[in-house]
């Protein structure tokens, strides 16, 4: 992203202005990272130091061990992994097919169909919780992982994003492949999908982090350890009545966020760029 310039741009701050801006930017950064730093401190120290900041406090991993034993987090991790994989795979297939239809086929009703797709950006599944719960009850899938996934697997956002990308693929490539005798699906898989790979990565990251973090709908449709994702498991664990101490809750909190957090720290640039690509329409 950063361009190498020999001379600084005219409005780059320098001298006192740069110092002031740096101090302000760092101050805000410290405030922004403070809650996380606080959780890290509490999780890695014995309970006695959870609100007592002495640099000599002993470090410990005991809080993580206790949290891991106190609730079936291994199962929750597995559930969340299955959930995000299931959603992502279905989204890729469904959104790719639909986006291809919108980008390259001219057929009666496509305008209306596209408007119906876009309607989901406003009428979000997040809000239709009452009716979707009834649907899941009728389908007999309450308290299962597919029940969490079903409302999200046809994503208007994904269809829109891929349609925009497919539209930028030169029509000549498409025609050339068809002259060679490729079928519509072959053209899609051999020409369009490879060219859109960065968008798939971007959309994948956004989708995984959204569904890894999603809470309200899974809270409503799940009721057992076998179906609960991490977020709901964490809530059940930390709102228990037995008065679990804060250091253990902080450890559990860090544990549930760790995969995304570590992934983010390792692939920071890709993450940031993915969010950017997914957002620019």
């Amino acid at each position, binding site marked *: 992203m950063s361009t190498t310039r020999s001379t600084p741009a005219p409005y780059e701050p320098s001298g006192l202005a740069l110092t002031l801006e740096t101090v302000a930017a760092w101050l805000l950064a410290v405030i922004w990272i403070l809650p996380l730093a606080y959780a890290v401190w509490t999780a890695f120290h014995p309970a006695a130091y959870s609100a007592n900041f002495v640099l000599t406090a002993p470090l410990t991993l005991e809080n993580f061990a206790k949290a891991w034993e106190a609730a079936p987090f291994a199962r929750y991790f597995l559930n969340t992994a299955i959930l995000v994989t299931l959603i992502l795979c279905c989204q890729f297939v*469904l959104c790719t097919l639909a986006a291809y239809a919108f980008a390259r086929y001219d*057929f009666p009703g496509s305008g209306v169909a596209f408007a119906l797709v876009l309607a989901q950006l406003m009428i979000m599944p997040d*809000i239709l*919780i009452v009716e979707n719960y*009834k*649907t899941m009850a009728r389908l007999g899938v309450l308290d299962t992982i597919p029940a969490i996934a079903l409302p999200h697997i046809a994503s208007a956002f994904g269809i829109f994003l891929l349609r925009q990308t497919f539209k930028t693929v030169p029509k000549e490539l498409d025609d050339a492949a068809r002259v060679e005798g490729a079928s519509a699906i072959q053209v899609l898989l051999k020409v369009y999908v490879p060219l859109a790979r960065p968008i798939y990565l971007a959309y994948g990251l956004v989708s995984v982090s959204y569904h890894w*973090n999603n809470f309200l709908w899974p809270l*409503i449709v799940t009721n057992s350890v076998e179906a609960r994702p991490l977020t709901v498991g*964490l809530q059940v664990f930390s709102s228990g009545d037995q008065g679990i101490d804060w250091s253990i809750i902080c450890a559990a909190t860090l544990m549930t966020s760790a995969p995304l957090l570590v992934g983010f720290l390792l692939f920071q640039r890709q993450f940031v760029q993915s969010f950017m690509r997914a957002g620019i329409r």
Partner: protein
Amino acid sequence: MRRSTATIHGWLLLLPAMVFLVAFTHWPAVATLVDSLYGTPRPRRPAAFVGLDNYAQVVNDPIFWQALVNNLWFAVGTIPVSIALALLMAVWVNDRLPGRTLVRMAYFTPTVLPMIAVANIWLFFYTPQYGLLAQLLSPFGLSAQNWLGSRETALACVTAVAVWKEAGFFMIFYLAALQQIAPSLGEAAALEGASRWQFFRRVQFPLLMPTTLFVLINAVINAFRTVDHIVVMTRGGPDNATALLLFRIYELGFVFWDTSLAAALTVLLLVALGLLAFLQYGVLEKRVHYR
């Protein structure tokens, strides 16, 4: 390709996605409207048509008005503040500050954390006596303040969490847009002798308007669907001081199991969101683009 073949292929490609969209978005939206006109079915008593009774009940419920007012304050608190902070962060991170990669990381980190997890952390942050906030403020004699437990401060506290969570996310879009502004514009403005503020106000800010519209739409939607932290931090309390509309729908539907009232409230929320979308796309879009 013949037109009829194109039609068949097009619809076949669309079919799987459409089935799921209709089943879990369009049909539930219509069913919500229908259900809102019927009473809640109870064992041995099927739902009866009640017309607009549910709406009358919702409108006569003081908690609905409280949730609406809370949600408006929540929107007023989160939307402008998070957008302004995002813009400020983007402008800062766009400059060549020492350690700007770290600063950008700090701003963006809340975005990748689950809301439910950060709500737990903030809960402890706000705890009276022991919490970090209480410790920081103890020199001012405010350590006993129960931030989440008193009506006056609870809503502001949950609003702050939402701003903290989403500002870094919006920053990314501004950053991308800032980096696409041609450097020649800055050079031209400098030749004309414009101050940095004038350059920002007259050149950068207008060019960022499409981004602002996009971010604004997202911020508005978020203001009406962000309730995870309410469930963790306050459960709508104290005394409904932090009840937001979607939280109230959840409460009516899945705590009190009055699904008809929840349906009526859902319809009202959808209508409100639809109107807002119409306003944003229809009115603002025309003034945003320089073409």
